């Protein structure tokens, strides 16, 4: 019987040598004329173990990692295809504590299936959601999404069902579904992993959205920094189209051009239309007047990819998970200076301490954790004193932070928080679309002011000025870029005041 060996093709796995491992494996298989087929998959998201390869045995899959190309001949010699003992053997993937503790709904197939095999997709529950949506009808489908409590996973947390209903109720002969895959937040890669590891879930989710709101065309806007995801997504759309899975719904992929602000929904729509990615004032809401002036459902990729599972298993099964008004699961992306970095999908409610200490295992270099930035470059820096904060939209908001798209970036005790605050303002300046004054000018003035504080120039007066500037940014900006930049800046000042206004640290 042919043995299947799974090697990830996920960009992060490739970044640490998965292709070289796959080549070495193929060469060894050919040399020994073994009855082995290599299958390239997405990643399970256990990045400290990447490249992690899996062998299909009679007792289920057995994983080995992190594997280097130079390990391959020895592994094969030892009996890799039988799943034998070896120092790199980590056992059944499902029993690795990092995976065992998870509740994989959105990521159930990621790292398991061949991303471009519709057969695999269906065999693992794919297209059950669309079938159920058709049974429920458009209105019933929207009710189901609303009942699940699913909120926007891009960061805003707006209830998806309400967005869909608004677009469905808008009278128009043309409507659109847009998938926001402009995943620019540092520390996040959930969209990328899904596009590379389970692209049909994106396609099915968008098809369901199109059916529910009456849209015949969908766009997937992918950032240009993700060439692997673009390739896989393009191929998956072609496969789905050829197999007749789109069923009258047309899908097109658009590639961004390096502008962070295009992750903001109205800037993204401008970009698809072929303009500078400048933010539009709201109202009108995209659901009323979005792409090309037509009613448009624009959702984050994780939101759309979660819809098939919600429809397939029912709203209730999803809604029972989570806490408070944050229902279901969140793919938390543990990144930065952390021992066990990776994708951890879990019901809302884990505390930050559980995430970074227990699951993440502390820093990679063993130094104490000093700060954790949650929610990307616009998210707050939390000190250990706030590690009891549960992962929940409202709990983070109550502590002047946000969960954003679920990125968690760990910093050790060598971090200089004044530099991090400065970077937040600098980044805002680099990426500002220029439409509104607080963001365009405030970011630049903010960097200048922080520089004075760092130089010890009138510390208290300049800190007061920064606070005032942050108020203007927060309440006077058109979108979240200017509006949320105060989170990293003010959290750094509030929780780490000792880093502001002293002689500059030597850079490690």
């Amino acid at each position, binding site marked *: 019987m042919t043995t299947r060996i799974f090697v990830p093709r996920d*960009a*992060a796995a*490739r*970044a*640490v040598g998965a292709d070289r491992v796959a080549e070495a494996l193929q060469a060894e298989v050919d040399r020994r004329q073994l009855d082995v087929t290599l299958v390239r998959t997405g990643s399970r998201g256990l*990045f*400290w173990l*990447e490249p992690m390869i899996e062998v299909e045995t009679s007792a289920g899959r057995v994983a080995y990692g992190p594997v280097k190309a130079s390990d391959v001949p020895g592994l094969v010699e030892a009996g890799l295809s039988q799943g034998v003992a070896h120092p790199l053997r980590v056992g059944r993937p499902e029993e690795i504590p990092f995976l065992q503790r998870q509740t994989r709904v959105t990521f159930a197939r990621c790292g398991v299936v061949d991303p471009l095999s519709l057969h695999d997709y269906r065999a693992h529950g794919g297209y059950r959601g669309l079938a159920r949506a058709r049974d429920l009808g458009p209105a019933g489908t929207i009710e189901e999404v609303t009942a699940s409590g699913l909120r926007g996973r891009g960061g805003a947390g707006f209830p998806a069902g309400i967005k869909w209903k608004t677009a469905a109720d808008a009278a128009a002969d043309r409507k659109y579904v847009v998938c926001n895959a402009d*995943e*620019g*937040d*540092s*520390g*996040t*890669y959930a*969209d*990328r992993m899904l596009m590379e590891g389970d692209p049909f879930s994106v396609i099915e989710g968008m098809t369901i959205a199109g059916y529910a709101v009456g849209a015949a065309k969908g766009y997937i806007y992918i950032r*240009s*920094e*993700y*060439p*692997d995801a673009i390739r896989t997504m393009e191929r998956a759309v072609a496969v789905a189209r050829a197999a007749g899975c789109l069923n009258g719904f047309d899908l*097109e992929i*658009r*590639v*961004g*051009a*390096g*502008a*962070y602000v295009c992750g903001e929904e109205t800037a993204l729509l401008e970009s*698809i*239309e*072929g303009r*500078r*990615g*400048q933010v539009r004032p709201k109202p009108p809401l995209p659901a009323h007047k979005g792409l*090309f002036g037509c009613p448009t459902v624009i959702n984050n990729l994780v939101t759309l990819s979660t819809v098939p599972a919600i429809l397939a298993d029912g709203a209730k099964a999803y809604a029972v998970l989570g806490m408070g008004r944050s229902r279901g699961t969140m793919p938390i*992306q*543990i*990144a*930065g*200076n*952390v021992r066990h*970095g*990776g994708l951890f999908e879990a019901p809302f409610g884990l505390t930050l301490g559980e995430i970074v200490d227990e699951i993440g295992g502390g820093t*990679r270099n063993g130094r104490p954790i000093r700060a954790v*930035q949650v929610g990307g*470059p616009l998210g707050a820096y939390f000190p250990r004193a706030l590690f009891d904060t549960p992962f929940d939209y409202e709990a983070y908001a109550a502590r002047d932070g946000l969960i954003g798209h679920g*990125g968690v*970036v760990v*910093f*050790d005790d060598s971090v200089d928080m004044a530099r*991090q605050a400065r*970077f937040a303002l600098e*980044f805002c300046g*680099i*990426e500002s*679309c220029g439409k509104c004054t607080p963001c365009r000018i405030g970011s630049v003035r903010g960097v200048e002011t922080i520089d004075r504080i760092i130089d010890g120039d009138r510390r208290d007066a300049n800190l007061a000025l920064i606070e005032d500037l942050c108020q203007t940014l927060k309440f006077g900006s058109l979108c979240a870029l200017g509006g949320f930049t105060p989170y990293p800046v003010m959290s750094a000042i509030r929780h780490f005041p000792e880093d502001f206004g002293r002689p500059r640290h030597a*850079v*490690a």
Partner: protein
Amino acid sequence: MATWSEAEAREIVRRHSGREGPLLPILHDVQAAFGWVPPEAVRVVADALNLTRAEVHGVVSFYHDFRAGPAGRHVLKLCRAEACQSMGSEAMAQMILDRFGVAWGDTTADGAVTVEPIYCLGLCSCAPAAMLDGEPIGRLDRAVIDDIAREVGR
């Protein structure tokens, strides 16, 4: 990379003529063909899409991806965002810039490599991260930098 050809630019525009909002796909293809977006291309595209040159220039200059001049034979993008910062990316980047004798955005004098900043490649659990000619690179360290230097012939 091809040298400027108006015929090729017109062919690119024609290829996208049936699309809604074709400007970004056109500009991506122009840059893929010529390595940058030459001013002549702005004129051709504006003319074909019935836009002003100012409008097209406004779009080209808005997006970080579109180059106002040719790049080196290789393009190395180094991530400068927070997750990579937490793993010492800035020191690593300085080492690379010094080694190649360039500043951010510059091309080495021999035209071998252009080094550009990038803000997140989605490889944040394998930081510090980089991308060489579209290929992802993770866990950047001295040995990996040596590999990169060899690859670009420096």
